């Protein structure tokens, strides 16, 4: 599991660097002779991270739809809508989290495009909300080994109607790989604002937030494939 995580970050970093090289080619030779118009429209897509994750690890199943709408040259209103079922296996507990989430916010494109290119290196923020249930599949009472009692208790207790509110900071890139088709990668750092906790258990995983760390923070990565439905063009 640990090596898989390390590998995951390594691949991510390489992917990121590939992007940065292809971006840097466009820098430094700007001419203002021609006015290039920007495409405005609604961009919709899906997250590729969860479907790929499901292939290698059956413990996670989910779908996320992403969308953004350009409101100015630099700003985009963005939202994500998703569903996630995730089983977490720890030393003494095993539980399944099941629920849906919505995130809404704003992206700011910090990248100055060359010619009529429409790539993005952006920063953004999101407000996230999720409602979900937790099912405690098994647990082991953490006790003295003397009674040979490190046996798992089948529990199956379900905690319904839980929810969570959080804030997210997003860093990402989007590249137009074909006309109107975008491939994106983003990283998000999250901080829990409030959460309705189950009794005698804790929300250790929240859909859309992922693993809740001890200091109530979390992070996530997304690979997205999205399509821009162009509505109009504007010089600014």
């Amino acid at each position, binding site marked *: 599991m640990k090596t898989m995580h390390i590998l995951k970050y390594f691949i991510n970093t390489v992917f990121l660097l590939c992007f940065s090289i292809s971006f840097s080619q466009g820098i430094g030779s700007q001419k203002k002779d021609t006015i290039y118009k920007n495409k405005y429209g609604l961009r919709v897509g899906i997250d590729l991270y969860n479907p790929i994750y499901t292939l290698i690890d059956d413990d996670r199943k989910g779908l996320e739809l992403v969308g953004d709408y350009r409101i100015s040259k630099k700003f985009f209103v963005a939202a994500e809508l998703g569903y996630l079922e995730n089983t977490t296996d720890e030393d003494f507990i095993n539980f399944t989290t099941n629920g849906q989430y919505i995130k809404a916010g704003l992206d700011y494109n910090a990248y100055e495009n060359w010619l009529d290119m429409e790539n993005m290196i952006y920063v953004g923020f999101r407000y996230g909300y999720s409602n979900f249930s937790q099912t405690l599949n098994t647990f082991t*009472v953490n006790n003295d080994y*003397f009674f040979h*009692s490190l046996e798992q208790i089948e529990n199956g207790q379900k905690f319904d109607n839980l929810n969570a509110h959080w804030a997210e900071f997003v860093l990402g890139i989007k590249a137009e790989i074909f006309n109107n088709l975008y491939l994106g990668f983003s990283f998000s750092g999250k901080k829990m604002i409030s959460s309705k906790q189950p009794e005698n258990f804790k929300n250790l995983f929240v859909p859309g937030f992922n693993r809740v760390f001890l200091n109530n923070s979390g992070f996530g990565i997304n690979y997205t494939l999205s399509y821009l439905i162009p509505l109009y063009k504007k010089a600014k």
Partner: protein
Amino acid sequence: MKQNKIYLLIIILIGTFLLSCERDEICIDEVTPHLTIRFYDNDDPETKKSVNGLIVVSEINGILDTIKISPKDSISLPLNVYDTQTTYILTKKIDEISNEDKLIVTYEVENVFVGRSCGYKSIFKNVDYTLEDVNNDDLWIKSKEQITEHIENENNAHLKIFH
């Protein structure tokens, strides 16, 4: 200049990544407490007195197994969290002859969530102690004094035994 800005952003992006690889949480919280017994002198109830050649055994699935051999004046023993009672046989050596006394502890078990890495622990409510003689050779334990009704932590001793 612009190029630098972008590289800076990418460095921040990667940096944030690496920082977010937080260390695994390790279980450092207190888990299921042991029963802590402290031994006192029967003639001088304020003075701690260790038990000569103390051996504690308990029964697991019908087989007796040694928990601890301790020369100290206090001992901590595991309670069976999958049952509502645990029986110990405490043996003291008096003039090279072993004297066995039985201590029966009854309780209610409650499982309490601790955290991700520790899972659940058990705490013991309404604890009660009974002494029984083994082999008709009189009790070496003269009396007992219950300190706490519930066993929730290991901060203090739970039972005093006078001998």
